[in-house]
């Protein structure tokens, strides 16, 4: 059973700023969904290959030709903070 501590850890891994009140709402919902998912354990899958993807694709490659790339201003046009041709972020080095 997933605990309050587990959910707090998940929030951290998921980069979500969750209050204790948030966790109290999400924890029972995640518990309920995980309890439902538990039914998979009843199935014996010994030796069954996993399917991550349905198409039989292997290393799709293309010709190494020079094509058009996204112009810098187009790449930056939706950034909340941009300037001098860069995405702006808070300083990460003291």
């Amino acid at each position, binding site marked *: 059973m997933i605990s309050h501590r587990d959910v707090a850890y998940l*929030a951290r*891994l998921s980069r979500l700023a969750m209050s204790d009140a948030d966790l109290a709402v999400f924890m029972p919902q*995640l518990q309920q*969904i995980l309890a*439902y998912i538990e039914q*998979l*354990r009843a*199935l014996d899958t010994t030796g069954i290959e996993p399917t991550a993807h349905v198409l039989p694709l292997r290393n799709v490659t293309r010709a190494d030709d020079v094509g058009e790339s996204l112009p810098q201003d187009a790449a930056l046009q939706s950034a*909340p903070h941009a300037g001098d041709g860069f995405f702006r972020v808070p300083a990460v080095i003291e």
Partner: protein
Amino acid sequence: METVADFLVALRRGTLSAREAIELALLRIAASDPAIRAFLSVRTDEARAQAARVDEQRAQGVAVGPLAGLPFGVKDVICERDLECTCCSKILTGYRPPYNATVIERLRAAGAIPVGRLNMDEFAMGSSTEHSAFHPTRNPWDTTRIPGGSSGGSAAAVAARMTPMTLGSDTGGSIRQPAALCGVTGLKPTYGRVSRYGLVAYASSLDQIGPLALSAEDVALVLPHLAGHDPQDSTSAAVPVPDYVAGLSGDIRGLRVGVPKEYFVAGLDQEVRHAVQAAIARLGALGARVEEVSLPHTEYAIATYYVVATAEASSNLARYDGIHYGACAADTQNLLEVYTNTRRQFFGDEVIRRIMLGTYVLSAGYYDAYYLKALQVRTLIKRDFDAAFEKVDVLVTPTSPTPAFTLGERTADPLQMYLADIFTVSVNLAGIPGLSIPCGFSEKGLPIGLQLLAKPFDEATLLKVGHAYQCATDYHTRRPAICTDLFDEEAKE
């Protein structure tokens, strides 16, 4: 003037100009959408300008595309250049993609005209369109009810005859379930049939773009302009695209139809059961050979889906960081807070639930027990379909276990909402194509959908069966009362 076929015939004959086609769509949107709210925005000026260009080309004798002048709506998860694309999430507020999705490029090249953006559950996560960050969409057959989801806006717009065709996306039933609940025809193509370039990713191994329209014939008219290999999407398959319209013979004599017994169990609404059984009998009367088949791992499909889909979603949605595009939380002290505050503040609760669930099933110590296990069960589900298609050409099931439910009925209970997808998620896990067509109405007048499934890349058989059924029935031609008045007025003019 309702169907894609109606529009194309009139446009090609010249009895309807592209400009008139667009005005008709805009008029119907203005008349019906205030009560339905399928659209987020309508691009009036650009649509008119594009229509004027089509008419000019026709007047000058310049060859125009096969869909020239056809208005269509676009689910808010598909990119159109410089037009805000939010996936109905606050976190993408202000995002203007610098490129068109391949499906948009191709439809525009064929002459079709996009007229607006359609409502959906946030990031396509939901079965009712109530998880839109903007507003819910209402079912045209009963505005106290949901239109299904996540492509609820796409289905409602077609049902209310606002545009003859819309684009949706389907990760676990998001085209088929709203099509069923709104009484329209919706196709989830085979995984790899249609390019996903420009489709905002939810679960990349399951997502597909597909059309919603009023008939199998209409889907057949549009599908060739969506399908086919695209160098921009390495998972789009280089499989030839047949002439779907030419395959609509109306003759299904000798076709083998399988009825999976696991889809007719407790929890299936009685009216849905009866309508689907009557539809199966109708296919038999048309000469199909009906037999019972078994898909033994059906009961594990929802659990498998919610592991696979959420795992992929938790990875895909990691890109929303408040830096590259969309919204960014104010008053943050450092980079980590930019991430964590932006994501908490601007993702809705259902998206947060799925990100956390996906993170959990992929995390150290749980990966084998949940994620790997689900991928193994996915193999078993796929094998069930492979075995069934050795015996039959198509499978027939209900699309949704119930007709449309009321707004607010399931939002408090996420698991109950997930169970709305019980008959549709297996199809995405197996990567096969699925078509939902109208097959009846409940006593309350709510549409009921029939789901047809076929082998990978055999959309042609689905459309052939759907068309044969629609030649023998009229459920797909019935209009909700909300737009009947409008049509009466148009007829008078």
